[in-house]
């Protein structure tokens, strides 16, 4: 058995965050039906921007779409003509995942109020940039937008440089936040029998990650900003250049014992006695000078060598890994981090395994992402009990595009 056996999810969302949330529920055993349309394509099938992957041969061949949409079926329904059909599907579902601009769903009878009248047990997950309420609810947004609005961009970068644009990362973690809220709502519904509305705002998720800096403003009116790799207390705390081209190791020291261990490995016991570096505060105050000295040592070794030497001595040193390093890293390989899935148009493709290992809860054997509308007929027959004649009728009306 799977944890989410008996749960059916209707995924009306587009892009990355919503679809991945639905896919995660599918991986834990829920049956997921993705509603999409060939007349207004899920842009998740189209996005290649920023990836340098080149032009796609078809909407079924986007590797990003195909990793984010595993474990679901696809039905094509034209929203303008088919909202009644979608509402019919909702009566057979437990969870609805959507990311319409707030207010947009109402015209189609798909707002939470309308949906809960159809089926009060429905858990609806609404995912947007700024949330369902408030004066900025109408923000158009993508992953980098969440990070900028949420304050994470302003906090990331060199102290002397501009804020940083944050990558698709913001979408993916948003999917996990929505997944967490949904799982909790399912647990609650198991007891109460009641559905509910989950309001997920990408920008607020990002703001949670700088919560400690927000407290500093609340306490002291202090506006924290970019600090590169540095820390308020720890020193050293930075990335240091290593042997090779563009190779770096991150290194952080929390106390005097770790500093002594680091100096022992660097064969510079004199630095533990130098008044400039002997205490945590003096190290922090003199870290520009100290960082230069440490770099003269790190540059002689590869990041992997430094990690091995320093971790053995109890010092937190971890390479700033790149994807080449990770793909063939002994630890990652032993942890079995990825799998290969076969796809009729793409051939075999790699996908990362879910970021947890569980000893009892099982993950479903991965079903590749669906082709556009691949299961339209099947879903109409099996879930809604439509006859061939009814399906032909819907097709001729242009509902199933």
């Amino acid at each position, binding site marked *: 058995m799977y944890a989410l056996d008996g749960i059916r999810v209707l995924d009306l969302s587009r892009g990355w965050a919503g679809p991945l949330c639905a896919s995660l529920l599918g991986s834990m055993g829920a049956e997921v039906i993705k509603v999409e349309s060939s007349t207004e394509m899920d842009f998740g099938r189209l996005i290649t921007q920023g990836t340098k*992957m080149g032009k796609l041969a078809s909407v079924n061949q986007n590797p*990003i779409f195909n990793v984010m949409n595993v474990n679901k079926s696809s039905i094509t329904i034209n929203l303008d003509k088919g909202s009644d059909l979608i509402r019919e599907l909702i009566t057979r579902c437990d969870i609805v995942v959507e990311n319409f601009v707030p207010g947009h769903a109402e015209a189609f009878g798909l707002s939470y109020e309308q949906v809960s009248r159809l089926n009060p047990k429905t858990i609806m997950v609404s995912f947007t940039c700024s949330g369902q309420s408030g004066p900025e*609810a109408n923000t158009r947004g993508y992953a980098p937008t969440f990070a900028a609005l949420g304050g994470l961009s302003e906090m990331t970068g060199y102290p002397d440089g501009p804020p940083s644009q944050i990558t698709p990362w913001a979408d993916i973690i948003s999917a996990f936040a929505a997944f967490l809220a949904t799982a909790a709502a399912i647990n609650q519904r198991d007891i109460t029998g009641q559905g509910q509305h989950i309001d997920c705002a990408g920008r607020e*998720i990002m703001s949670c990650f700088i919560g*400690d800096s927000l407290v500093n403003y609340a306490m002291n009116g202090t506006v924290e900003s970019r600090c590169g790799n540095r820390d308020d207390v720890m020193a050293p705390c930075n990335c240091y250049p290593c042997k090779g081209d563009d190779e770096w190791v991150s290194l952080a020291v929390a106390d005097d014992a770790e500093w002594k261990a680091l100096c022992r490995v660097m064969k510079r016991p004199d630095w533990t006695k130098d008044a400039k570096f002997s205490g945590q505060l003096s190290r922090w105050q003199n870290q520009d000078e100290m960082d230069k000295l440490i770099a003269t040592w790190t540059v002689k070794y590869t990041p992997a060598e430094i990690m091995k030497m320093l*971790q053995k001595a109890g010092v937190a040193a971890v390479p700033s890994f790149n994807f080449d390093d990770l793909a063939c890293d002994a630890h990652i390989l032993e942890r079995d981090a990825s799998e290969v899935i076969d796809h009729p148009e793409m051939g075999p493709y790699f996908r990362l395994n879910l970021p947890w290992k569980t000893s009892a809860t099982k993950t479903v054997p991965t079903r590749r992402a669906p082709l556009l509308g691949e299961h339209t007929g099947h879903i109409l027959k099996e879930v809604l009990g439509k006859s061939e004649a009814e399906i032909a009728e819907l097709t001729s009306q242009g509902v199933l595009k």
Partner: protein
Amino acid sequence: MSSNKVSMPNLKSNQAKALSGVKVLELAEWIAAPYCSRLLADLGAEVIKIEKPGQGDETRNRGPFPGGVPHPEKSGLFIYLNTNKLGVTLDVKTATGQKIFLDLVRQADILVEDNPPRLMKRLGLTFNKLKSLNPRLIMTSITPFGQTGPYKDYKAYPVNTFHSSGEGYFTPSRTEFAGRPPVNLGKNAAEYPVGIIAAGITNIALRHARKTGAGEHIDVSKQEALLFLNLAHFSTYLNKGVLPKRGDRGYNITRIYPCKDGHVLFYYHQKREWQAMLDIIGNPDWGKEEALANQTIAEERAAEVIPLISAGIKNRTKAELFKEGRAKGCSLVPCSTVADLMRSEHLKERKFFAETEHPDAGKLRLASAPYSLSQSPFGFDRAAPRLGEHNREIYVNRLGYSSRDLVTLRQAGVI
């Protein structure tokens, strides 16, 4: 013990929450694991946080502090991560401490911990041992590199956590930074997502345990959690061989631009969003060139187009640009500072910040949760615990130790 029965405790707020009746034990410090259990506490679970006697969670020594004056009961970081929890002190390295710990494990549904696997093994606190005392126990272990593999006992602070994932190597992404070092995400920002991921799978395991009566061990590696957050780029790398580096990312026109009082981000995917942007900067003549409406062509000509967009933006404020972007349907948003966020009318109306009244640090507005649930309303029902604040409540009222035992245990340094 019935596996389906869940008792509802008396709550201050009269509405039950999603995880009402769920008991969580936390043997963890710093950020990721305590954040995981704060998320569970916010959803209604009762969380008992275990701290080292005398010393407490390491974050008690880290700021921010009111007025910048360190005080173990006033750390903003500690308060942010531990509000809504009960707190006890216990040295699990002592024999008596361990016995008490096992008593607490017997009463728990979930244990959240972040200790090096070799330490848990040395203390005899392996999942198999704990399971033998409580077969329904869900043990969620959150460590830098997971429970297995050659790096399993390696140490990582927030800066190391982020750089372990591959994302640091291409942060920041702008071309002019190609020769400079990779940087961290925010200050501690990489730790929080791990807490979200762990809390998500813990909720799934809870449903599984309620249905089957079987608990389990959940192994969350911070490295893998953050690598998964790179799903888009790592998948492109694995399947198309594209290795992202600092400075070579394709973000061109879609970027952060300086404006009058800070920075704004412009991002688009759709033609109508590009046209909205042109409208915002006054429909300049160069924008009328039809070819530029094609995103690929516009990006190829980024060097020429970026200064033109910059010129249209640089003398206007974040708030003006954001307002116009929303009205016209364009993703043009401020890079918010912490001051912008704390003063935001939008977040105020949405009650994103909630107030906690702490006996030592006073009234504070803290970030609430990364979502809101209509049937599980957010609220700070408890202030972050003082060190050992609930020793009596837990050890005497719940485990049945006497007041005299409490004194002995304290003198022996066990609690």
